[in-house]
């Protein structure tokens, strides 16, 4: 008990994260930029960004996570149609309402067609904001893919150097890989703790602990996560009568915090999820001391990253991986929670559905939007689903 009183409790840490997440703007990034010369900050659209390449170049990669349910989209919906997902519009809206003014550039990736077109629309509407676009390889079997991606990262490093006025060295990149490895490793440990003892760490708590990494420098985030891990592991709690659920489909646009809480309150232990998967992305550490750390990052992307519908690794079946994940997490069920109009997650569902049915794993398909603020209906659906399993 004595050690627990010396370090912050999980509730206090989560409260701090909630506060930071809900604050508009990017105050921690601005403070970081002002603390030393040759620093800049870049907004990173989901899903995965090679953050090390930016950070090593003196550019703090800040995660963009849409507008949440407090933003009114007043301008951007005239640019993107009603059948386009919300995060595309809320990101543009943030730009149009000066909410991204603290950032020195924005980076998009080859994750889906609307994100691809947003990169163009963004650069046209904000001609003074540098915009980068990263094309991740989709041919995972090609022996030349790692070299291609390494060269792509080198191109990105030149872009980053223009933002900060400082080119990275190999040692800078190794140091960036080390610190982000530390962050990712601690997140993995937190996920493992939640898998094994979900009563000690709710997803409504784990989520903001990870999400705050969108805003903080990695050293600060690593420290916060270490405190959280310690606090959660030494916490006392009692298991409740809930079903164990693997949640998938929410890797880009993010559900409101209250929706995550509502899913748990409906009787679920979320024992795995793909929220903010880009902050974890790899299955283990990226090698830290190789001669060519850019190549190490590229190889890790291709051969040691988590499954995601925005990656098309034909060597594996994403549906089979989901079944394996449900089994390895001793899940009673899977919830497929897709952002409305999100093509990658909606396209993943038919194959998931077939595989889950064949494996005899119950599942529930739900759609959400970041801007939703009433949760009674969705909570009711989940409660019915949970009851059908508990009293089966």
């Amino acid at each position: 008990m004595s050690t627990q009183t010396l370090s912050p409790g999980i509730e206090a840490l989560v409260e701090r994260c909630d506060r930071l997440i809900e604050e508009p703007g990017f105050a921690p990034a601005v403070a970081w930029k002002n603390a030393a010369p040759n620093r800049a900050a870049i907004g990173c659209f989901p899903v995965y960004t090679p953050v090390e390449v930016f950070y090593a170049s003196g550019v703090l990669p800040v995660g963009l996570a849409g507008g949440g349910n407090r933003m009114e989209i007043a301008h951007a919906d005239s640019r993107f149609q009603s059948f386009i997902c919300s995060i595309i519009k809320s990101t543009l809206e943030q730009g149009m309402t000066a909410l991204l003014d603290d950032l020195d550039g924005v980076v998009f990736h080859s994750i889906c067609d609307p994100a691809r077109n947003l990169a163009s629309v963004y650069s046209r509407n904000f001609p003074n904001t540098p915009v980068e676009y990263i094309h991740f390889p989709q041919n995972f079997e090609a022996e030349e893919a790692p070299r291609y991606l390494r060269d792509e990262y080198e191109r990105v490093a030149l872009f980053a150097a223009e933002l900060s006025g400082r080119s990275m060295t190999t040692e800078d990149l190794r140091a960036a890989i080390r610190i982000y490895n530390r962050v990712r490793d601690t997140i993995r440990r937190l996920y493992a703790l939640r898998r094994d003892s979900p009563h000690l760490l709710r997803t409504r708590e784990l989520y903001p602990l990870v999400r705050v990494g969108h805003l903080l420098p990695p050293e600060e985030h690593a420290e916060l996560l270490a405190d959280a891990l310690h606090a959660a592991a030494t916490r006392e709690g009692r298991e409740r009568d809930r079903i164990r659920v693997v949640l998938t489909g929410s890797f880009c646009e993010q559900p409101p915090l209250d929706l995550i809480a509502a899913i748990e309150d409906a009787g679920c232990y979320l024992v795995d999820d793909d929220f903010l998967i880009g902050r974890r992305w790899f299955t283990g550490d990226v090698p830290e001391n190789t001669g060519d750390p850019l190549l190490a990052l590229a190889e890790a992307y291709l051969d040691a990253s988590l499954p995601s519908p925005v990656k098309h690794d034909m060597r594996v079946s994403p549906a089979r991986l989901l079944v394996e994940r449900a089994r390895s997490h001793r899940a009673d069920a899977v919830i497929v929670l897709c952002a409305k109009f999100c093509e990658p997650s909606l396209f993943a569902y038919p194959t998931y559905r077939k595989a889950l049915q064949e494996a005899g794993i119950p599942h529930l398909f739900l759609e959400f939007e970041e801007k939703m603020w009433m949760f009674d209906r969705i909570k009711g659906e989940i409660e019915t689903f949970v009851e059908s399993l508990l009293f089966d």
Partner: protein
Amino acid sequence: MTETHYQGKLHHLQKELMSEYYAALTASANGSGVPAAYLLIGGNPVELLRAFDILPVFPEVNALQLAVRKQSLPFIQSAEFMGYSSDNCAYVKADIGMYFGGRQTPFATIPEPSLLLCNYVGCNVYLDWFGHLAEFTGQSAFQLDIPFIRTASGEPSKEDIAYVLRQLHHLIGRCEEITGRKLDEDKLREAVRLSSLTGDLWAKIKHLTKRTPAPYDAYFDSVTMMAPLYCLRGTPQGLEFFETAYAELLAKAEAGVGPLEKERFRYVIEGPPPWPHLRAFRDMFSRWDAVAVASTYSTVGGLWEFGFTHDPDHPLESIARHLLEWNLTNRNFLQRYEQIERYLEEWNANALIIHSVKSCRLFSAGQGDMREYFTKRGVPTLLVESDLEDPRYFSEAQMRNRIDAFFESIAHRPTREGVTA
């Protein structure tokens, strides 16, 4: 109301040649022994398949043929029954539904693929589509990864070109495994030579609509000619078709004959057509004596009219260039604005129609911004919404009202040249 008719020699020839093509698909499905490869339209490398006598099958073409024949909905619904969302691309749903429906269509029996060639040229849905086909057929797909155009120059980097070339060599290896024979380089050069001549003719045909009156409609007639452009390119029959088409359309141009009795409005159109309602959509423009002089959709497979030509002396390099740079789908959204701008200027058009389709977000995402851009530049611009495959997303009366109101409004306003239309 002015009605349009398709009675030229080229239409008969197209019908005959496409019937032969579909007969070959059916024969392959029935065990003719000719292997079939599924591939996608965007910047397609069909020449490589020709060199191995592999039959190209374009699921997009099959899907749109179903839509044109008003046969797509049951297949779409059966895919939705499998879990596909009403918000997913309906080309994919029609194709998947048709695949599980025994691959039977009114025009052909579609063969099982010996090769799933996913030429990932800009469209992210391609990856899901062929990933699913791989999952459902048990075949492995060859992902031909084409880096998207993302440089300020609008050109691929030398690393991009090298990356694609190396993958093409692997693809050749896969084709050699499937057919059991080595690449015949002369045969590849011949296919590329035929493509080169075909592409040159297609470019000339595209430039004919710079004339007034335009000798054909560069949307409704161009998209029809896309079938031979993709399904027959790289063959003598494909070349024959475009020789015939060019001769016939040139003669019309020389004679000052257009598709309508009178040409009152010249417009550029952006986006895929509403295939299930093509006739009704066409007539909404014809009744205003409005002719499309250029269309972006007719460039998804290649941008020959802006100077691209295949090079038989450097076959693989030119195939790589075609995939990377010389098609609409792999170019970024702002390059499309430039393309439209060129059409408006060089093809002397006085309006822009944006047909926004829900299925294809590669095309549609951000078209509101495009409307804003062109409206601010003084180009009368209309954005209408429906779908390319799903007949349920077409409201004929509403669409007609909007198109009528648009042409009514520009009928009395000065054009870009200061002349009342």
